[in-house]
């Protein structure tokens, strides 16, 4: 199984007087949090590059080692400089995060080849695949997935909170399937194996719809 992705609120961007403050929730694995922050920075690079960036922890200041590690990793991966801001006081109520969830801001990924056994395709946002996902392959997308082809491998769409994502495929017979972290053990009926279907959550359960209905976006 893929590692569950971190919830969106684990890294929050906040507009402050001096620029943008990045709040890291240290209750998660610190390195993964930084990686998540890097993803978010990359997805919003244009907007962020016009502002000074600062970091601190959601529940209090970061220690010098943590600051050093975050600055270095962010600099290496995004070429952007972040400054520590340890005197920032969290207001009693955390305001709305500025960027939208990653899968809505990350550009869609287009892939035009077959995914073969042992190959894994991972992306932050929506994925459109022109090709087949063979048995033994794996797709992990932050958003929805549309496959112009067959799906026989493992497929996971949407981060845990993004319940509106869907999977659409020409022929759908995956070995393992999850949407926004919800999985199913049910075997698909043979119709799905031949016709376009949409798969989406309905009352937190995986439900399969024929092509005509279309997903509820």
């Amino acid at each position: 199984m893929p590692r569950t992705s971190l919830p969106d609120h684990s890294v929050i961007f906040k507009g402050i007087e001096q620029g943008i403050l990045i709040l890291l929730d240290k209750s998660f694995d610190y390195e993964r949090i930084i990686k998540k922050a890097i993803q978010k920075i990359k997805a919003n690079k244009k907007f962020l590059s016009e502002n000074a960036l600062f970091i601190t922890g959601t529940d209090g200041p970061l220690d010098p080692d943590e600051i050093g590690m975050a600055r270095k990793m962010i600099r290496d991966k995004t070429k952007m400089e972040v400054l520590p801001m340890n005197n920032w006081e969290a207001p009693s109520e955390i305001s709305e995060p500025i960027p939208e969830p990653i899968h809505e801001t990350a550009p869609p990924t287009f892939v035009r080849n077959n995914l073969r056994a042992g190959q894994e395709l991972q992306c932050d946002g929506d994925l459109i695949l022109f090709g087949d996902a063979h048995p033994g392959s794996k797709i992990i997308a932050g958003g929805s997935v549309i496959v112009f082809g067959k799906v026989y491998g493992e497929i996971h769409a949407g981060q845990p909170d993004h319940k509106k994502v869907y999977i659409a495929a020409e022929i759908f017979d995956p070995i393992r399937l999850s949407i926004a972290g919800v999985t199913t053990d049910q075997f698909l009926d043979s119709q799905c194996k031949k016709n376009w279907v949409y798969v989406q959550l309905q009352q937190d359960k995986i439900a399969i719809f024929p092509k005509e209905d279309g997903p509820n976006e």
Partner: protein
Amino acid sequence: MSEAIVFTSGKGGVGKTTLLGNIGISLANLGHNTVLIDADIGLRNLDIVLGIEKKIKFNLIDIAHGICTIDQALARDHRAVGNLSLIAASQSHLKEDLGKEALRKIVSKLKSTFDYVLIDCPAGIEYGFKNATLCADRAVVVVNQEVSSIRDADRVIGILEIEKIRKIQLIVNRYQHELTIKKDMIAVEDIVDLLGVPLAGVIPEDVSILLSSNEGRPIAYRKNHPLQSVFNDITKVILGEKRSSVESHDDSKTASLWKKVKKTFNIHR
């Protein structure tokens, strides 16, 4: 232009060595200057299948380690019409004893004198496989009608594609017609459809293949044996002729993006 073709499969025992030997013979019989390299170091098979074990004085590792020249290690099989030569594997070394650069140099030297260099690749996807495939311009992937064999072939094709080996052809070996008709075996079309690479041909399950290998007199040398022409036909496809057979495969895998979109949205134009 001379070409190096690797025979590979992922899964072991599917018939790489047997097919490579027979196709090598067909190539030479068609007049092409052909050399076979047994790159399955540690498991010397190809000279035995061809029945020229006694002619082997030096091997691939000897060349790589500077013990002999390439010419000294070439064992000529005089039964073929054209030039057919073999460089055998060493039985007493490990795959890792053959350096990447060394094999690449040997292959590129051979390409300056031979039309075709066929490389017999070890099973698996580790060092020996990587080493053999890195020297190749093209690949022939051998597969049986078995789920695990097909899965391994898919994995191998994925790696070959990443290595930018553009031309990959498939041979389905040990085909069992009766069982396939009864749907007890996976149909050739389904294998081709799943793997999405063009089919060079199908070799039936036939005990005479095994017996001929044991005798050291490969089928491709047997004038009136029906399998000789099967090997010849496959060889011609490898040489670039179009396959004439019935089960020409659905090209949806290689279809253009526009074709796929057209199909999906029922656009008729």
